[in-house]
């Protein structure tokens, strides 16, 4: 039973302390959502876990492996995939190339499974399957987000870090994407750490909620409880 254990994590962003002693546990097979206002440190948290930012102190462990401050390339190989915010795809690559990029490092040991993984991910997002040869730059926002997620999924992660997948997307598309993730999580036991601005949508689908404010964990509860807590919402999320 592997879990993501974040312990007393401190990360600086320039002169600002973006993460000021963050601790929580994301259980295996569950969707844990990290919510909070802008600037609370949510993105920095994901970036520190995936190795893009260096932690000043504290530890991150996934399963039994300490992945604190490892290089991103190694963390990916430990089964952690990060979809950064802003549908990060390479616009001049085709849809297929963007997906293949995510599986490159597995090609050597397991090329047949790579093919299977690619076709699975295209089954999950049929709209991408239709546009396999198109350049990623010509896709709509929602399709690009699906593509970014596909790139991460094709590495067969056990932990998926999702940074604001709903950003700039229409509610219907967001719903579609979130449901695909939910379905994937329930059927394969994928652990998901979901950062979201849209607390309602996130808490509706998550098992566990972590509320961040100014780099600190303010609340850590089952999602349903957090969702019902209107005082918390008003104080930290402004609605």
């Amino acid at each position: 039973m592997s879990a993501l254990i974040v312990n007393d994590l401190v990360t600086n962003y320039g002169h600002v302390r973006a993460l000021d002693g963050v601790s929580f546990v994301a259980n295996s097979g569950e969707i844990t959502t990290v919510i909070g206002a802008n600037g609370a440190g949510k993105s920095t948290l994901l970036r520190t876990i995936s190795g893009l930012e260096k932690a000043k102190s504290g530890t991150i462990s996934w399963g039994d492996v300490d992945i604190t401050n490892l290089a991103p390339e190694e963390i990916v190989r430990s089964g952690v995939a990060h979809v950064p915010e802003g549908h990060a795809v390479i616009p001049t690559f085709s849809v297929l190339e963007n997906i293949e990029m995510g599986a490159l490092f597995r090609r050597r040991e397991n090329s047949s499974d790579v093919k299977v993984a690619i076709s699975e991910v295209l089954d999950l997002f049929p709209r991408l399957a239709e546009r396999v040869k198109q350049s990623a730059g010509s896709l709509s926002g929602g399709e690009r987000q699906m593509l970014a997620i596909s790139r991460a999924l094709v590495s067969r992660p056990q932990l998926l870090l999702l940074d604001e997948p709903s950003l700039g997307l229409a509610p219907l598309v967001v719903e579609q994407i979130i449901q695909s993730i939910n379905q994937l999580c329930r059927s394969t036991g994928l652990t998901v750490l979901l950062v979201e601005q849209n607390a309602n949508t996130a808490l509706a689908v998550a098992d566990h909620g972590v509320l961040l404010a100014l780099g600190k964990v303010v609340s850590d509860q089952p999602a349903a409880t957090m969702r019902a807590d209107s005082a918390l919402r008003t104080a930290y999320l402004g609605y």
Partner: protein
Amino acid sequence: MNTFISTLITGTANGAIFALAALGLVIVWRGAGVVNFAQMGQAMFTTYIASNLITSGNSYWLAFIVALISGSLLGMVIDLLIMRPLAHKKSSSATKTLAATIPVIASLGILTILQALAGVFWAGEERGFPTPVNSFYFKNGAGTLPFSAFNLFVIGVVLTVLLGLSYFFTQTGVGLGMRAAALNPEVARLSGIKVSRMRTLSWAISGAAGSLAGLLITPSTNLSPNSLDLILIVAFTAAVVGGLDSPLGAVIGGLILGIGISLVTTYGSPENVFLAILFLLLAVQLIRPNGILGGKQVRRG
């Protein structure tokens, strides 16, 4: 008419060589964010190595292969020993202004060192360099044809290399990884691609491309520590004209410059070549700074 055709063919052959050199510059620019002014210095150095192998009795082809291998090794060494440490340094306020140009200045330092080393090892006197096939114009029954076997060789070799590189970058995993690392290093790292390894590979490929260009052009320029300086200028102009971000642009730019210089030399006067190059460079930067095939994005200095 024959003069015109031979001018065109010489121009194309030279243009192919310039395309190769320009491509080397573009590969390092895309893969590492550096305009490597030392590239043709590296090529000069490896051509000297080849020249010494030949004069001590080895075959041209052995020297050819050694030059290419040492070219890629030299490129890798420059990345590992100089460029990577440079990239890791934190910048103080005084150096922030220079941040983008520090690698350029470093490459100029490397160029100076390579040229001085070549002088120390092999002296500054000019020496010739052989061609593997005849460089005299073909003779048929009626007279001479406007091209030589060497012209064909050059065009053939460069074409093969270009096709090979094109296949490598578009159809292989490593090629895809290199392109990804160049276009979006962050997403590439998150995909498990070892970006710094890809960067070193860019230097290696570019080093080999430069060395090949050196081997092909030195028969006409002769060999001395400074013999390839002008080729650097032409390659740089070709890359800028074609678009520093575009490999295809580098090839097109190289051909434009090759044929253009050939025409100016034959129908104008050789002294005007530099003026023509300068004019072309200024015109491109004024009219279309991103080059013919360059993207529309803001150019990062």
